[in-house]
């Protein structure tokens, strides 16, 4: 590997000193991300060493060295903000993300608490990039080809799944504590924090994103993009490089084993109104110290009941439907708790235990989705605070759990599609923050 390679000429110069910690954590991470995106340069520029052509030509053996100014854990101590700062890299190339950030954070004497979450975060970012590209294509074709409109619901559903996974990953990252550069060393005080939620993320995100990538291949193919096109090659690269981000099935299976080992604890958890864990869902605020046990997936799942109760009495159709689906999921959670408690020690080799782990993970996903939606509504975020995307995501979770949707559930897909198409045409990321992109 050419470790001495110079910074790309195509990128923009640094605008913020790398050594001064940001006064405001959120703004600081956003600035770091903008700076990194500028450093990485235009992905379409054939002369850019971090551009698509150069990376594809370099292969995995000849990846370029990182530019000076790559955000690190010392500069951005909070795990969720570190992931946000690195997102331009995650979006650019999974193999590059692995080589530059994920592997170093995993390979320190004590792995960074967030390291296991960065792979799924990278997969989400890269899949979101492909989704935007496909949405732009379908949106363009839809203007004069009625048949292309059939793909809108599929892409809207994929977008809702992606946002649900982003919510889950954000909650898990925020449950990680990082002592910062002045502490004794990485992870010395809070080692292992977030590990349990990380198992849910590590299991579910590769599964759901894998389905999304399959759907994107279908849509591209049906829109006439054959395997040799840039769009299909970009998608194929994400599919192939999932293993580098530890976001393939073997990694997911290992994470599932950790969920199974904690299933007995799920049997003992009780519904929670979510107030203690509310900070985990407020993605626009800094993640302050979290309550003990906040990294426990069962604690997060238990917030489902409180979040559902707070939806009662809503007068708009989408929110009322969200409350009905929420109640159905709370019932499912009750049944699952009984099933988990029925066995003292769950065996990861038992398919029934693995099925329970799948159901438990889906309920944690639902709780994270509902929690992030509620917090975003409180912060008056225009799309994320609305009920539409959460209704679509929770409807699909309900379907995955084998439960029918309640009667009178409206179809939120058109509104979710509109948001996706707008982001695709305006150059806005598919993330929770609706980050405007440079390139």
């Amino acid at each position, binding site marked *: 590997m050419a470790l001495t390679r110079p910074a790309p000429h195509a990128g923009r110069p640094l605008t913020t000193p790398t050594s001064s910690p940001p006064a405001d954590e959120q703004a600081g991470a956003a600035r770091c991300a903008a700076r990194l995106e500028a450093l990485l340069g235009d992905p379409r520029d054939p002369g850019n060493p971090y551009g698509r052509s150069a990376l594809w030509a370099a292969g*995995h053996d000849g990846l370029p060295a990182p530019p000076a100014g790559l955000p690190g854990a010392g500069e951005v101590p909070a795990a969720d903000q570190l992931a946000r700062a690195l997102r331009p890299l995650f979006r650019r190339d999974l193999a590059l993300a692995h080589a530059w950030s994920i592997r170093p954070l995993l390979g320190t004497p004590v792995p960074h608490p967030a390291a296991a979450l960065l792979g799924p975060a990278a997969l989400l970012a890269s899949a979101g990039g492909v989704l935007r590209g496909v949405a732009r294509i379908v949106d363009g074709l839809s203007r004069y080809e009625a048949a292309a409109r059939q793909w809108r619901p599929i892409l809207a559903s994929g977008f809702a799944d992606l946002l649900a996974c982003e919510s889950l990953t954000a909650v898990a990252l925020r449950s990680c504590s990082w002592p910062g550069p002045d502490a004794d060393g990485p992870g010395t005080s809070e080692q292992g924090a977030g590990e349990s939620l990380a198992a849910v993320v590590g299991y579910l995100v590769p599964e759901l994103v894998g389905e999304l990538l*399959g759907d994107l291949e*279908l849509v591209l193919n049906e829109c006439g993009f054959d395997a040799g096109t840039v769009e299909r090659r970009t998608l194929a690269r994400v599919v192939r490089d999932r293993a580098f981000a530890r976001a393939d*099935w073997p*990694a997911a299976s290992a994470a*599932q084993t950790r969920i199974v080992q904690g299933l007995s604890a799920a049997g003992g958890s009780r519904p929670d109104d979510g107030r203690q864990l509310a900070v985990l869902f407020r993605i626009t605020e800094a993640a302050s110290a979290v309550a003990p046990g906040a990294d426990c997936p069962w604690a997060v799942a238990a917030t489902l009941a409180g979040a559902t109760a707070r939806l009662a009495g809503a007068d708009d159709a989408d929110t009322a439907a969200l409350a009905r689906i929420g109640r159905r999921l709370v019932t499912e959670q009750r049944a699952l708790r009984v099933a988990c408690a029925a066995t003292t020690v769950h065996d990861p080799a038992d398919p029934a235990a*693995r*099925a329970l782990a*799948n159901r438990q993970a889906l309920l944690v996903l639902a709780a994270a989705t509902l929690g992030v939606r509620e917090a975003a509504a409180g912060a008056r975020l225009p799309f994320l605070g609305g009920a539409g995307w959460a209704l679509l995501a929770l409807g699909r979770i309900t379907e995955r759990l084998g439960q029918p949707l309640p009667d009178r559930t409206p179809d939120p897909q058109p509104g979710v599609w509109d948001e996706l198409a707008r982001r695709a045409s305006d150059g806005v990321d598919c993330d929770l923050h609706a980050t405007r992109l440079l390139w």
Partner: protein
Amino acid sequence: MVSGRSAAHGRTPVPPFPPPCHVPGPDGPWEEVQERIERTGRAVVHTTWGQWLTPALLDPGLRTLLGRDWPRYRQHPAPAGRLSLAVSRVVLKHTAAAALQVPAERLDLAYLPGGRPVLRGLGADLQVSLSHTDELIVVGVSRAGPVGVDAEPAGRRISFEALRDHVCTAEEAELLAALPEEERTEGFLRLWTLKEAYTKALGHGMRRRFSAFGFGRDAAGTVRLTGDTAGEWAFATHLVEERFLVSEAHRQDAAPAAPGGARAPSSADEPGRPPSAEPPHGARVIGFPGRQSPGQR
């Protein structure tokens, strides 16, 4: 038409698929299925719902076995459809259970939002596909990658003229149009089942346009997906019980290399094992299109 593709890929040529195993009831015999799973990572089972009906319905654990399908079974409007639904799910679960060597009631059959059946929580560790037509039930299970199966009565006549543009690529349509009518009808049905099996393995079903992908034969006469330059896919069509065409599609998953030349940080490093070289017995392996061997074409 594809030719010599396997050699060009540097992969071991894929031996013929064995015919589907006939399993007459929940008690098996399952040894052949288990041996195939151990040898190749996959197996296809066929039976008739009449053979399984009585033991399935008399099973006191039927409700547990059907799991989330129980309400669908109970509320299905047509008696034949209700029984077919129940028996096909029971066959699927028992086949998967035999492959994993676990009790069938430990498995939870679920469906992805697009309708694809999956074993909840098992992910890529065991993938399944189900097809039933008339009294035939066919189940494919695979521990080595996606699998799809499709079955049709061999005598079914699908109008080539009416459906050619929806089903065939231009090359396939040209080849079929040149055949005598009887062979064309058979070849068209065979092609249909192959395309069904392939799209089911992808999890896309009918959403994928059949005319947008095509099949041909390589130099060895093996059916190949056009454009599958990596040689990932393998296909076969069998005549089962002399009355049904059964096609299967299988993708052999492989792990990529990691950046820096090392293997990817993944446990998916088990090398691909070739499918069984066991010669077919009791069922014929059929190529596409036409009945000629590639040397005759």
